[in-house]
């Protein structure tokens, strides 16, 4: 259980800092009420169209590729914990794993799937 104390401290600090920033700006800041101020913020321009617009399908491809490489990271996490016990063997097996995925990465890159158009 004691292993989680640092995690707890980080969580407490995260909440504290967030509360501090929001609280400070609400106490110290000027309060001017205008209609424009309450409007939806869109890069300082006048808002165009509704909030719910259809997203382009290309985002989905990016998300899917992210998911796949995220899973690769999941494999790296327990490996990082035991790499001391595994030594050279562990390095080589992970190298094979990464090289096979690198083929996929080269494929994605050359295919232009990472470019917008």
């Amino acid at each position, binding site marked *: 259980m004691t292993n*989680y104390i640092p995690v707890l401290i980080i969580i407490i600090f995260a909440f504290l800092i967030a509360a501090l920033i929001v609280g400070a700006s609400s106490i110290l800041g000027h309060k001017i009420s205008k209609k424009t101020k309450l409007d939806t913020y869109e890069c300082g321009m006048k808002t165009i169209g509704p909030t719910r617009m259809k997203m382009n399908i290309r985002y989905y491809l990016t*998300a*899917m590729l992210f*998911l*796949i490489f995220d*899973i690769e990271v*999941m494999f790296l996490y327990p490996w990082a914990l*035991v790499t001391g016990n595994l030594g050279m063997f562990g390095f080589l097996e992970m190298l094979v794993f990464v090289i*096979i995925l690198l083929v996929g990465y080269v494929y994605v890159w050359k295919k232009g799937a990472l470019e917008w158009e």
Partner: protein
Amino acid sequence: MGAIGFKFVVFIVAALLVIVSSLLMTTRKNPIHSALWMIVTFFAMAVIYLLLNAQFIAVAQIMVYAGAIMMLILFVIMMVSLDNGAQEQKRFPMAMGTRLSWALVVVVLLVELMFAALFYQATAKVGSYPAEAVASLGNAKTMGMLLYGKYIFPFEIASILLLVGIIGAVVLSRKNK
């Protein structure tokens, strides 16, 4: 308050959070709100996994589910049309009787599962990694030792599985040139 008591309190809080947030998830009209409540469910479940000494699953839950898969779900919600008309549609065109009978079936199955879990003793042999052994080394480390030692062959094949997934994602979502 001892460690057991503390764990119990954390479990109760996390379990209530799971139940409440999943109820909110299923009852929200706005799908984006449902998705956000689902993230809360995932996080609360990650806490329960931690209590069960399954650290790896907890991390995977947050990284893969709350991170990547949730993003996919949000993109899907944003890709489909969200006209107001669609929201007013009856979500399940089922009569009340049908709904109740389905609910009854689910409840019966769950109770059955509970009884099965309570009254049938598992006949499994005690494996090489009982809970104490795992706890002494840490779940993720035990898993790492197995995955990168004994199970190296399926591990390497898993990279091919991911490669096939990459090819599929690219080739199916882009038009052939």
